[in-house]
């Protein structure tokens, strides 16, 4: 038996609220490099809040608990610093940014991260060859790069654009927030194969989803069920299958 690798992400008793409403009520989770964790749960269970809190969205206030990322206090970092440290959130609802070209946006992001690490920035030509390579992963046309960020993109195009960004920024911890929502089966396949191509022994993933469907394409190592702001059950892939059959009704019972 190999000794387990040091945890990449350690969440301890995390509580968070928006306004007066407490949403996360004590999340505990441990993620090691190379692992893919699925987080499943009914609507309003706190899945998306967890992903937003990890990425640093200031709308949510952490009231209790701790998040360690590579042994450091993640919650003390600004969103851009978390990104520079290797955290990436694929948004459930990618934001449209009129007036900012997709290519310009992505190069600005990559170079901001590189600058922070004292690395040489990519010029337009080098970036173009990089992006051409990465676009193949999600079967994206170069025409997307000259359009404003997500503006007028279909649901599937937006999600593919998220995975493209992930491929370019090459994160250590990728959080996919309901990446399957609103996708037809073809788009789901493309997105999932893009994600699978990015699976790596040094990269961990949190795959947040309502449905088991996505997990037929992205096979998780662990499955957690979240309800009422807490993880109520953890297991392996079989747990996802079980949920598919039984639904979330029992989970609602387990909260009590």
């Amino acid at each position: 038996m190999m000794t387990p690798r040091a945890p990449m992400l350690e969440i301890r008793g995390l509580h968070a609220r928006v306004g007066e409403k407490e949403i996360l009520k004590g999340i505990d989770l441990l993620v090691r490099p190379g692992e893919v964790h699925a987080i499943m749960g009914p609507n309003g269970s706190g899945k998306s809040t967890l992903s937003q809190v990890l990425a640093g969205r200031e709308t949510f206030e952490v009231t209790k608990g701790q998040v360690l990322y590579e042994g450091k206090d993640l919650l003390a970092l600004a969103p851009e610093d978390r990104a520079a440290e290797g955290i990436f959130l694929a948004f459930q609802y990618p934001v449209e940014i009129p007036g900012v070209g997709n290519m310009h946006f992505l190069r600005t992001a990559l170079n901001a991260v590189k600058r922070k690490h004292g690395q040489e920035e990519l010029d337009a030509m080098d970036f173009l060859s990089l992006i051409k390579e990465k676009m193949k992963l999600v079967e994206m046309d170069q025409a997307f790069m000259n359009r404003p960020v997500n503006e007028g993109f279909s649901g599937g195009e937006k999600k593919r654009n998220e995975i493209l960004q992930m491929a370019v920024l090459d994160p250590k911890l990728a959080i996919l927030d309901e990446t399957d929502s609103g996708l037809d089966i073809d788009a789901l396949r493309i997105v999932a194969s893009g994600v699978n191509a990015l699976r790596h022994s040094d990269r961990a993933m949190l795959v947040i989803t309502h449905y088991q469907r996505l997990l037929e394409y992205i096979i998780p190592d662990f499955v957690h069920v979240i309800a009422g702001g807490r993880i109520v059950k953890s297991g392996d892939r079989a747990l996802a299958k079980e949920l598919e059959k039984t639904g979330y009704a029992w989970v609602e019972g387990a909260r009590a």
Partner: protein
Amino acid sequence: MNAFLDAVRRSGGIAFQRMGGLPTTRQEAWRWTNVAPIGRIPFELPRPVEAPVDLSELDLGPTRAVFIDGRWSPFLSELSLLPAGVRVRSLAEVEPAVLEELLGRVAKAEEHPFTALNASHLAEGAVLEVDDGVEATSPIELVFISRAGVPASTHPRVLVRLGAGAKAQVAEIYAAVAGGPYFTNAVTEVSLGEGATLEHARLQLEGPGGYHVASLWAAQAKASTLRSHVFSLGAQLARSEVSARFDGEGGRCELHGLYVGQGHQHLDHRTMLDHKSPGCVSREVYKGILDGKSRGVFTGAVHVREGAQKTDAAQSNKALLLSEDASAEATPQLQIFADDVKCAHGAAVGQLDDQALFYLRSRGIPLAQARALLTRAFAEEVVRRVPVQTWQQRVEAVLSRKLGGETSSTAEAGEKTS
């Protein structure tokens, strides 16, 4: 001296007195803008200066008429590339018949105190004529430089006439080579023949001590098109007016504006569209970016007269406040006296989108850079409509200085050429 000009000056002076001199904030049209400081400064007419002027920073185009402290500079002007049928001349040198035909025809001294003031000081300016069916292929720049050695005022007048089917691109560029205070009071009169198309840009890049009042008055014949691009970037106090009148059917008028205020800048804009003929289209997009303690004002008047059926008018004004002390006023004024018309207007004052900021930051873009990126994107809608690339770049350069960041379009242009 020209007897006609003397008469214009005299009646301008009388009109200014009759209106009670400079307007006050008690007058509706000047409610948000106090021009009293202009009256308190003892502005003199500038004295001629011999010292050379360095304009390299302005990166002027190959076809230009340059005025230094209101005086035409043959040395700095360059007009040899103008095609046949296109004339750019000094107002002081144009034959009286042309002046009588164009001067005071659209801009009425008795209707506007600053137009009256301009008329009463009338001495210099530019006259651009494009003959019927002629296309002025290269963009024309009219450049007004204030040296502001003494508190000086200039009152340039620009007269533009496009014949039937003629086309031209004209930019008026206002800048200073010294601090100030100084006062520019410009009046532009535009007359468009049937089917003519004019792209007009006003790049207001005045120095920090400048007071700038400028108005453009256009009369559009049947099926003519005016596209106006106003950039209010400099001056401590600026008032820009654009007024267009449809004299014939099927005309089109697009008014675009961008104002970017910082510190204590006060930037006021007024547009007036007179839909007096049926079947004309007007489009207006004015945007403001206000930081520090600056204030932006936009008043958009649309007048659809009786009988102007099938009028299609749309107006939009959006202001972005970057600080808590900045403020914006927006006043649409729609008067509609025809029933079969489309008139839309929208005004919004807001801050940078929180979600978009988070999205950018979550990709590693630092807060200040994310703010600059979104702010430049907000301006982009207006900037990208400027038809001449060098004018666009000049605006972009000022925006980079004032707001930081760069835009996708300039970055991509760089990508294409590298």
